[in-house]
């Protein structure tokens, strides 16, 4: 079942084309890794799917609802972690999550049950009464994830969910995403290539707004060129890094 779909998305900011004809689908049960260099158009694509930005042309669908023409229905099915995991700095974690739950239409009782479960799952109990601005990066990111999961959405769009986390926290976040995966369609953007192998069923590579590859991690690996021994002596790279460099630098350049 297709839960996320984009059709020939184009987004221009003035003369700059941030997203250039991106088309892909994500089914239930898939975790799609969104890869690309900085400024490749990953976040812009995600913002369009979430309905925060309007595409210059093309369409984006969440669970069959056009995120422009039917935004409220699309957003009901969507959990979105924006870049940088923002939240209101002067609210406590508890007050913020209760606010989001209420805005998502959960009744008081439902919200209480759901939040109790989430606090357990994302491990927020110790910061429940702390103000968001006083939290460490790891906790902020977890609050962002909790906020996106409040209404148990079918679709999760997570913009760099592990950015700024320490290795243990990264591991926990990946575990969480894996456990959520079977019942949802998840799109995760990252620059960390090992993450793709760790959690993704499929990887989409974009650079300069163009979709360059849409394949399983194994297929991507197969596209890696023979390692150049000269280069390997200086900095050792993984096969996936070689593949990524090959696709984003050489393909985009040609």
């Amino acid at each position, binding site marked *: 079942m297709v839960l996320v779909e984009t059709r020939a998305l184009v987004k221009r900011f003035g003369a700059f084309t941030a997203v250039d004809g991106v088309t892909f689908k994500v089914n239930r049960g898939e975790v799609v890794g969104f890869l690309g260099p900085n400024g490749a158009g990953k976040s812009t694509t995600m913002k369009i799917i979430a309905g925060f930005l309007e595409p210059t042309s093309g369409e984006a669908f969440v669970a069959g609802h056009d995120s422009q023409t039917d935004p409220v229905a699309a957003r009901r099915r969507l959990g*979105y972690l924006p870049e940088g995991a923002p939240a209101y700095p002067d609210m406590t974690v508890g007050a913020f999550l209760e606010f989001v739950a209420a805005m998502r239409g959960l009744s008081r009782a439902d919200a209480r049950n759901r939040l109790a479960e989430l606090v357990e799952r994302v491990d927020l109990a110790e910061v429940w009464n702390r103000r968001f601005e006083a939290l460490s990066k790891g906790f902020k990111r977890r609050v962002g994830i909790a906020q996106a999961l409040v209404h148990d959405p079918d679709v999760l769009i997570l913009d760099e969910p592990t950015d700024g986390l320490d290795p243990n926290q990264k591991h926990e976040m990946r575990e969480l995403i894996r456990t959520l995966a079977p019942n949802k369609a998840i799109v995760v953007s990252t620059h960390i290539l090992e993450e793709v192998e760790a959690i993704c069923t499929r990887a989409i590579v974009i650079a300069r707004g163009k979709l360059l590859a849409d394949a399983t991690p194994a297929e991507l690996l197969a596209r890696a060129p023979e390692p150049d021994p000269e280069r390997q002596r200086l900095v050792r790279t993984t096969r996936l890094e070689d593949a990524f460099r090959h696709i984003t630098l050489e393909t985009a350049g040609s």
Partner: protein
Amino acid sequence: MNKTLLVFRREFAGYFATPLAAVFLVVFLAVSTGMTFFVASFFDRGQADLTAFFLWHPWLYLVLMPAIGMRLWAEERRSGTIELLMTLPVRPWQLVVGKWLAAWAFAGLALALTAPLWITVNYLGSPDNGVILASYIGSWLMAGSFLAIAACISALTKNQVLAFIGAVVAGFVFVMAGFDLVLSAVRPWAPDIIVQAIASMSFIGHFQRITDGVLEAPALIFFTSLIVFALWLNVQALEARKAA
């Protein structure tokens, strides 16, 4: 619960999360009563009314209302929370109205805290309380108009200072609309009807009629429709930023 009300509650509580609210209320009370006693010579007038108090409200609001309204959208944009807010399953107008209501309620609170002045004039003499009530209502509506303009301008930027300055400038045009400063700039080239239309947009003109004791439809309709229009523009500003 109603989404607009939820936004209202969060936003209203937001004013009190920092010392900002206390500072604002103190400044508002100090300046509004200070003007009444020292500039407008409340006692020397020897009259039991609050004319000296309400006289300054358009000027006071010109600076203080943008200070309340500047953060409404600019802060969301700066901190990135606007992305959360705008991807919740709600319509933009629900957010716009909720935020404006919170600012308006806060202005109402500031106004309500001036009640000791009203008690004082009732102690000193027997004022026309009908006029005073009408003036309070008029003053609150005018505050709402300033706030709607400030909210709308706040939606255009992530810089609160810019939002403040923009709102003061826009407010100034409305305050001065009935004065020659504005009218003489328009008169040479615009037909008479336009000049009159601009003159009739004057905050001071409408407010003065209310404080004179005439709480009539035209002034009420003026402020209410200005609020509705500014909030509608606010929604448009948010929509336009999506396509930008």
